[in-house]
């Protein structure tokens, strides 16, 4: 019983320590995702007008998102890690920019700038969380041929 309690306590302490170490990065990842989402949504809102050719709007939106992701990625990578910043940011920038371009060329929702920004936040948050979940699924040994 004492052994089991000791093991439980050690595991709990280890878990808490790991959580404390990773928490600032997790929060940083979420904030970075939201920031890229907002800036991409606003950047696309400025450049794309209702009635614009949808294909061109999607290409333009994607390009704007890529530029924003690249600049923010360079700024945030030293704080959050190169790949942990770059991969979510590029997903939000490139694919999110494409979606925003499509939406804004059709004037399909988010009529105010604030609403567009809010959708940017939501997209950023969802992409970061989805990537974290996917990372959990993929992480670990792929091949182990032993010695």
């Amino acid at each position, binding site marked *: 019983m004492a052994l089991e309690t000791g093991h439980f306590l050690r595991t709990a302490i280890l878990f808490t320590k790991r959580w404390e170490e990773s928490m600032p990065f997790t929060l940083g990842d979420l904030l970075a995702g939201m920031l890229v989402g907002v800036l991409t949504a606003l950047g696309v809102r400025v450049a794309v007008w209702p009635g614009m050719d949808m294909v061109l709007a999607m290409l333009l939106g994607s390009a704007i998102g890529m530029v924003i992701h690249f600049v923010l990625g360079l700024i945030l990578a*030293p704080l959050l*890690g190169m790949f942990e910043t770059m991969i979510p940011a590029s997903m939000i920038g490139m694919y999110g920019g494409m979606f925003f371009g499509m939406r804004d060329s059709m004037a399909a929702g988010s009529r105010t700038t604030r609403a567009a920004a809010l959708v940017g936040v939501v997209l950023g948050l969802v992409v970061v969380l989805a990537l974290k979940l996917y990372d959990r699924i*993929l992480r670990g040994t792929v091949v182990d041929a032993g010695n």
Partner: protein
Amino acid sequence: MDIKTQRKWDAASRTFDLFTFADDRRLGPHKRRLFTKVKGAILVVAAGTGNDFKFFPPGQEIVAIDISPEMLQRAAKKARLYPGNIELRQMDVSELEFSDHSFDTVATVCTFCSVPRPIVGLRELYRVLKPGGQILMFEHVRSNIGPFGILLDLMTPLSRLVGPDLNRNTVANVQKAGFRLRREENVYLDIIKIIEAVKPSSATKADSELP
């Protein structure tokens, strides 16, 4: 010596350590876990500014090479702090000056994203490893997942100007160079990986048959 590559990494050495704060904390434990497996004579390839020396177990005899003299200049201070022995040498991994079968372990960290001819470099490492020797790699590679892979392909022409390629298939390259894959682990998505491979014990005779 590949002068173009050398100049690129000389230039990168000035900002290289800016990116180590977060990567050390997030990826450092994985590197430390990988490098507990080092044994015998150790070759560290593309040591950079020596930021990864601290992840090696203490008391090892290490030879660390890099193509960039400016990287090595910065690495010298960190080599002195390592509680073991690290000899720094300027060398191109594609033209190693070591004789055959010199090392028991080769260690790389984000190296084969940057070597212009990766299979040539890996073949050189194969040559200098003793039969039965191991290569321990911490590398980022091209994702096999469609949307991530496309992103990495699109970003590579830009990233290549200042640093590494983002779309290398290093696991396949290791096998093409003649190594036998022992272990592959995903560290972040399927992009950052631990790759462990060995040079078969019977490799001496088979060396000439490899590409």
